[in-house]
């Protein structure tokens, strides 16, 4: 938000003012008529603070598929949220995403509607994601939720309070989840959860944790109708008009943007280097066969290193919203990384989503297993075979490295993966970004977003974000489902 305001405060470019002049005068007339009506205007510019609005809107204009999905989403929900707009870069995924989210929130399920939204609020609040919290506070009240609950978990029923612990652990240290936690929830006399309800809640929690990551990772701006999304201050004359911002012209001349553009030339070789490395890895895979112990150490090293990656400077602290403040708790991932305690390794070969997680979810919450499965696969396999300006590139290696790196941060290990590859393919700034986004998403800054993969397009960065989001969700789900399975056996 702060970025956005600075954006509006900067001087507009002359040419821009020229093009928008006519509309501007009419706008000003409107606002000067002084009918006593306060006209709200968006604080941010476009759906994302990081991505110029022009680019986002272009996508939906060009791609009929995206437009169709947008139409559908609009018809169902009555509005299009900024998340969907940004995801519009990847219509295939967006379709899956919306379908799943719709099912989780609206369709038949063990939990009642207001519970679902409340759990969403709980989850988003763990990351102080005011955007999602606001969105669901509205929905929550709309489906008849008790506004007292919004004063904090203390105001909610005991049943939901019990979920707080699970929420906390899942969000920050899912590896600590044990069957005892599950038992506590399921055997709490009158406040106990049923297994089906618990699965539903777990899916919702993980969904919103990871969605919070995405929200911060892409710098989603608040909706205009929610708090912090609009201002009633009249546009100052020194600025260009509202309509310019709405048209997305404002951001292109942002000085920082320029700075980035300027930088790009310095790093022009980056993509090529990355591609070269991928090629090398592909070829000389067989030559240097690392010993088993070496592989194990590589994983451990990557794991510990990932924890030490400095997440973010505390310089920019997003002011938390009223509601989310009530859910705050000092418990967080950072405690863990500082202490550097040992994370037990989770072998994906022993408990995988495809074999075990899917069956469990689908058994207790029919159809959701399939929806999630489709979504994971879509995110994992999505590719356009491009990298920045290069075409026909096999990116599977890179995608796998990102996916496995995130799972590695949660202590999930793939026996059949050489974690040396991660080091080769992901540079430090990228790792910082991933780490921040996954573990402390609220600390993601525009600088981080800009500083990794400078040559890549915004759509590709959003793609990375999708990957991060789904990988995180799967990691959390795996831990939760494994605990539930252990409880059941």
């Amino acid at each position, binding site marked *: 938000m702060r970025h956005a305001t600075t954006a509006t405060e900067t001087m507009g470019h002359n040419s821009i003012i020229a093009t928008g002049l006519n509309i501007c005068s009419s706008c000003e007339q409107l606002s000067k008529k002084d009918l006593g009506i306060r006209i709200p205007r968006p604080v941010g510019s476009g759906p994302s603070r990081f991505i110029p609005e022009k680019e986002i809107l272009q996508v939906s204009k060009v791609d009929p598929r995206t437009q169709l999905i947008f139409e*559908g989403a609009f018809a169902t929900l009555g509005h299009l949220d900024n998340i969907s707009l940004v995801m519009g870069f990847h219509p295939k995924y967006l379709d899956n995403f919306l379908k799943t989210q719709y099912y989780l929130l609206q369709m038949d399920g063990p939990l009642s509607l207001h519970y679902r939204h409340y759990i969403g609020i709980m989850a988003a609040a763990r990351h102080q994601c005011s955007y999602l919290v606001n969105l669901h506070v509205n929905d929550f009240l709309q489906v008849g939720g008790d506004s007292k609950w919004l004063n904090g978990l203390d105001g909610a029923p005991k049943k939901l309070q019990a979920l707080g612990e699970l929420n906390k652990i899942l969000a920050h240290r899912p590896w600590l989840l044990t069957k005892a936690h599950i038992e506590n929830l399921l055997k709490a006399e009158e406040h106990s959860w049923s297994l089906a309800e618990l699965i539903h809640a777990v899916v919702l929690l993980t969904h919103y944790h990871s969605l919070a990551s995405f929200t911060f990772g892409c710098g989603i701006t608040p909706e205009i109708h929610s708090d912090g999304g609009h201002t009633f201050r009249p546009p100052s004359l020194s600025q260009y008009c509202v309509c310019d911002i709405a048209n997305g012209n404002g951001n292109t001349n942002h000085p920082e943007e320029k700075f980035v553009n300027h930088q790009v030339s310095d790093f022009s070789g980056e993509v090529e280097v990355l591609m070269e490395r991928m090629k090398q890895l592909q070829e000389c895979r067989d030559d240097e066969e690392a010993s088993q112990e070496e592989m194990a150490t590589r994983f451990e090293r990557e794991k510990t290193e990932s924890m030490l990656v400095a997440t973010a400077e505390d310089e920019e602290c997003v002011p938390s919203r009223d509601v989310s403040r009530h859910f705050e708790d000092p418990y967080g991932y950072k405690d863990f990384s500082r202490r550097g305690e040992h994370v037990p390794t989770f072998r994906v070969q022993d408990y995988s989503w495809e074999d075990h997680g899917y069956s469990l979810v689908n058994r207790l919450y029919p159809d959701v297993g399939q929806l999630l499965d489709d979504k994971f696969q879509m995110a994992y396999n999505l590719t356009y075979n491009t990298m920045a300006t290069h075409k026909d590139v096999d990116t599977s290696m890179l995608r796998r490295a990102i996916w496995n790196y995130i799972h590695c941060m949660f202590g999930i290990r793939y*026996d059949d993966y050489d974690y040396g590859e991660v080091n080769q393919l992901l540079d430090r700034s990228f790792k910082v970004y991933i780490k921040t986004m996954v573990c402390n998403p609220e600390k993601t800054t525009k600088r981080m977003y800009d500083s990794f993969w400078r040559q890549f397009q915004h759509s590709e960065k959003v793609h990375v974000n999708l990957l991060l989001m789904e990988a995180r969700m799967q990691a959390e789900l795996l831990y939760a489902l494994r605990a539930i399975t252990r409880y059941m056996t």
Partner: protein
Amino acid sequence: MRELSSWKFCEQHLTQKQAPLCVILCRGPTFSPGSCYDHVGLWRLGSNKQSIMHLRQREVNIFFSHFIEDYWVVGREERCRYFGAMEKMSRVTTALGSSSISGRTMFCHLDAPANAISVCRDATQVVVAGRNIFKIYSLEEEQFVEKLNLRVGRKPSLNFSCADVMWHQMEENLLATAATNGAVVTWNLGKPSRNKQDQLFTEHKRTVNKVCFHPTEIYMLLSGSQDGYMKCFDLRKKESVSTFSGQSESVRDVQFSMKDYFTFAASFENGNVQLWDIRRPDRYERMFTAHTGPVFCCDWHPDDRGWLATGGRDKMVKVWDMTTNRAKEIYCVQTIASVARVKWRPERRWHLATCSMMVDHNIYVWDVRRPFIPFATFEEHKDVTTGIVWRNQHDPYFLLSGSKDSTLYQHMFKDASRPVDRANPEGLCFGLFGDLAFAAKESLISGDANRKPYPGGDRRYPIFFFKKPDPTEQFANVSSALSVFESPVESKHMDWLVTTARLYLLSGKPFAELCDHNAKVAKELNRPQVSTTWTMLRIMFSDPANPSTPGPNHIGKLGTLPLMNSFSMKEMGAGLGVEGRLDRSKGESRQDNLHLEPGTSLINSNNDENEETEGSDGQAEYMFGDAELDDDDLYSMEHDNHGAEYQEYTLPQEAFPLRHEIIDNPSAPEHLQQDKADSPHASGNEADIMCLTPIESFSLISISQPLFSPHLPAQFFCPVVREMLIHYAEQGDVQMAVSVLIVLGERIRKEIDDLTQEHWYMSYIDLLQRLELWNVSNEVIKLSTCSAISCLNQTSTTLHINCSNCKRPMSTKGWICDRCHQCASVCAVCHHVVKGLFVWCQGCSHGGHLEHVMNWLKSSSHCPAGCGHLCEYT
């Protein structure tokens, strides 16, 4: 072929004795077509008598293609299953010769969860492999004995972490494992060193899910991996001979065909199954989609060429016939969890064993022709079973299994539980009109002399039900007889239920009124006991000072009646044998006994045909002392919530506020007027008839004050009421139980445990729905306080609609059609999308918002869309 005579002999032999298995051995120096085979032997296994016809060479190497061709010419391939290099023939002889294996159901603890198990050829040893375990156990009579730990080294590498293991079926020293890190490892038990690792192939990039030796070719090993490739290794070489690319997702299982030397099947994570020719790595021979979601396993039938069983995440086991051009699904078994392994049972053509990947820990043996109930179940494991294998390829009675619970079991078939035996062969069902159908074993029913044949001839064996008895089927052939008991048409014994259900009021009025109304309904249906119960409930649970009792009113009306009546009634009550009780009540409330008696007897008099007179009387004694509801609370609540709350509450919560409002409705005058206007109160009504009202009313008024004692709270009656409810439910009148439960609401709910309540609700709702009383059943669901019940009408509320423009189904979300980009279901009047109640004419299919159409039809009878149709709405 040189020894043609032997072959002939063999053929004869086979047909005569139905030999289940043959082993053919041969050795030829060269393997070109037409070359002569030096030594050919035929050996019959299966039963204990072997007939070795010829066996000379110890080292045999065969090139099977030609052999099979020759063999084919001879035309006996149906009978033969094993071709092999029989190096250890003597061992086989002992193993099979010593009159099959023996043993018992037994288990041993492993140190770690197992991922897979495999037995050696002679069924004496089993290998267990997992992430942290790799051991060989020998199978003794009474126990497992650990023979060898293959997991050596201080820090075992990932090569030891096995996803799968297979013991070679011909070479007893040879094992292969699939490692989770993508390595394929072979182990030679003959090695002198501690580390038995023989060869290591690290060609796969991802986890290897499955390894499979060729059943007859000693050096041929096949692997299937997560990376989507299958590789064929020649163990004499350092690397794979050929690579097969499935062109799709991860390979979950690979299996060589038992019958066709060159064929193998591969199952994939995307649901496909592919058939490959080992000689053609470029392209699969055939592909078909077997399951939705991953196919975790497949297994060729040991006897039937071309039968392939597959199991998938979709919880199904399917048997495919591959002999036709298109793979045909011939059997399908639906299990309760995703299927991890499937193995045909030896010697039993239709049987296969399965275990599941998640949740379910049992091993099931199915007869594929009876897919609904397992033939046998092994229930020993405490965690999911990960590996199953029949101990001997020719013995159907021993099953070995490994599990994640770190145990290794040998199951004896005789110890298996047979779900069929526990299944209930009797069925019972009520028809809509009270008919009763009952199916049971024929033997049980045949003795019944009253049986009349079904009109229209004996239908016991309709063509389409009759099943030819199959001697191979091990299920007992049960023929059942179906009897239908019709209830006589004139006894409309369900009528009262329907009428009562329709007329009962369960909410929406003050408590007392509800009770009175219901009592009246019951009375009109000639059910005095029920009626009285309602009346008493009202008396017990409502405020005696409440003006809603028709006291003053009746005094005014009937006050002139002689007081004498009361005495006669008293006598009547005494005559009914309740005097003792009355006396007691007299003693308890001395000064008022004079008034109390008639009142009590009034109740009794209503009950004169009631076997429960005494019990009800007991309740009635206290009828004036029950004013102990939290009056203050209730009153205040009532005033606060009267209007607003009523409107706002929806669904399950609704019941409470309403009832609170009921109990003490203070709007007496209005109430009384109502009473005068239409038919009087139920109780009043009765009283009128009995000519007792004045006394009763009088006593009510005068006594209520002195008796208003705080030590008789409403809870006092709860045990009695609870017993009453249970009594009704036991008698089969669940309607009464549920109705009272709803009307009393909070007052009684705590007294009865949730399960019982739920049970009653379910029964009543079921009854209502059978009688097609949808509205009533919905009301009951709505008013119920059990969460399990109230959610009933909130599921499956989806309505699937087609687009009105292109007539195709609409996707689940939205009001916009994916295909034609039009807003569907537009209101013909206002041209907006209708969300909510949509009404349309069935003639022209135009319509819109309910209100709009209703308004429109007031002014015009033509269709608002302008199509000219004269719309008709019912």
